[in-house]
């Protein structure tokens, strides 16, 4: 697989009259998992959609493999970059296998609608997401976790080196959240896919990200390794939340523990009695 490059320069994104992202530049590290975090309406989904060319920028450029993404034919982009949007809709009665099969669209033509390669890829995608035995079931009858795996299988079948996922773990219970995120790690490790996620759970982001991008009010406030970037000051700035940050006892990554009026009183009090909160 060739080495993809996805980056944005001086990006300006808006909906109707409302400017959401202004003069944002970002380079997505190739072959790594990047996670974008931030408070509600900080622009993280908007940024992802802009990167995926779902939203036409009002200014600035998104580069895919060094070329302007808007100048490339959309089908070509779809062979390099796939996106799983928030709350995707499936028509009633659509089976999992049918859904995954549709991921092959960018590789097909009107006269070449099903090749051996399509078959192989789809079967592999079903296996990788452990949805093979769900293949004949309608997507709308599955549980949240199963449904999300089916959509990821579709994105997988698209066969793109870069995958963008917008809040893939919202509405899932904790076991399914971890399941989905672990699957993405596997894909990243075994197939070297570049993965960009928007997550709302900061602790998951710390665990799973190689590269964390923290946003507030449409701008990037900090980016880098979670261990380097996630501090109490950052959380205060991005989420307006008092917290303690300690090393995750299981993963070693930063673990953010909120401090609020009813839990933890003031930060100074807590700090005085607890161990140092240094994150290395």
């Amino acid at each position, binding site marked *: 697989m060739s080495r993809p490059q996805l980056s944005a320069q001086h990006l300006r994104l808006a909906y109707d009259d409302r400017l959401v992202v202004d003069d944002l530049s970002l380079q997505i590290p190739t072959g790594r998992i990047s996670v974008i975090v931030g408070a509600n309406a900080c622009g993280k989904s908007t940024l992802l959609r802009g990167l995926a060319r779902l939203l036409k920028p009002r200014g600035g450029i998104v580069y895919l493999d060094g070329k302007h993404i808007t100048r490339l034919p959309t089908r070509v982009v779809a062979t390099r970059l*796939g996106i799983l949007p928030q709350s*995707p809709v499936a*028509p009633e009665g659509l089976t999992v296998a049918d859904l995954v*099969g*549709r*991921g092959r669209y960018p590789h097909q033509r009107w006269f070449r609608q*099903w090749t051996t390669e399509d*078959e192989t890829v*789809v079967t592999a995608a079903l296996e990788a997401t452990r949805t093979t035995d769900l293949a004949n079931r309608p997507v*709308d009858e599955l549980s949240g976790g199963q449904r999300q795996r089916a959509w990821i299988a579709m994105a997988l079948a698209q066969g793109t080196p870069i995958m963008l996922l917008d809040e893939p773990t919202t509405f899932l219970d904790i076991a399914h959240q971890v399941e989905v995120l672990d699957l993405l790690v596997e894909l990243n490790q075994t197939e070297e896919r570049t993965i960009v996620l928007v997550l709302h759970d900061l602790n998951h982001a710390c665990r799973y990200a190689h590269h964390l991008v923290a946003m507030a009010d449409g701008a990037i406030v900090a980016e880098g390794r979670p261990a380097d970037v996630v501090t109490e000051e950052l959380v205060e700035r991005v989420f307006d939340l008092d917290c303690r940050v300690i090393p995750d006892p299981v993963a070693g990554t930063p673990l953010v523990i909120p401090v609020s009026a009813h839990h933890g009183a003031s930060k100074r009090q807590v700090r005085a009695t607890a161990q140092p909160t240094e994150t290395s």
Partner: protein
Amino acid sequence: MSAPAKQRRLVTVERLPSLGADQVSVRLARPRVSARVSARTVSVCVVVFGLVLFASAVNVSVGDFPIPLSDVFPAIVGQGNPDSDFIVRVLRLPRSLTGILVGAAFGMSGAIFQSLARNPLASPDIIGIEAGAAFAAVLVIVILDPNTVGVTAGALIGALATAVAIYVLAYRRGVTGYRLVLVGIGVTAVLSGLTSYLLTRANIYDAARAVAWLTGSLNGRGWEHVGPVGASMLVLVPATLLLGRHLRGLQLGDDAARGLGVRIEVARGGLILAGVGLAATAVASAGPVAFVALISPQIARRLAGSASGALVPAALTGALVTLASDLVGRQAFGNVELPVGVITAIVGAPYFLWLLARANRVGRGG
């Protein structure tokens, strides 16, 4: 999975059990063409097509001048006795053919709109096609001499002009579905009002003719109707089928479709044009036959079990529904002949309600 086919075979047909019990892939070695079909869909299409043929044969055979089924085919090719030949070739056969083509066009158009709107109740009515066709047809019947070709041509022009007008009026830096519907309500209201007005100003016989047309009728449909519908379907049906794979992408929502590389505006525009074209020609030929566009795709989807727009099954189902309703309308009420639109409404409405009741019991309300 089944064993891979040898390279040298010209046509390879393979089952794909991992993708579904009835999924089959068909590949040609030269030229390199491939497709994936559902065996269930294919068998449904074959069966329904057979029923359509049977229904046409029955439709041709029964009537004031009954012709035994065994004589139908000879009469079609002109080898029967002169009376049978005339009745079959000039009266009944073109009527049945019109019914088939009109039903198929409605069915396919309904399937397109229901897939695009992701709404099982979507129908070409909304775009004002029927109101435009109705107004133009009644205008021709009442004001000009009501020979049937003029009515058809007028209705077609009315349908297309209305669709264009609604689109243009709704266009303001783009078209939102919402504005389109609102403008459609306005335009339809004007046209309906004018149509009702024309009915009050016409002489009673013209008014009766107009009402019959407005219900959707195959009375007096001859070869001059088969031609235009047939010609338009010859163009629009392949175009629609070609656009079918884009439709499958669009069904997943705009974001997912764009992510897959579907050119949304082009694909959607093309599909809407095809759907409008099919509906307009069908309405022009037979008037607005109730419910066919609405329920044929639903029936087809339940039979074929697929969610992929089911375009061909919907067309075949539409043809069958129209033919059967025409047959019932002609024969079931003694010496009264009711137009096909009355029957499709009387049968379609309870079916529609049954769909509703079923959906509620299963839990996916409405």
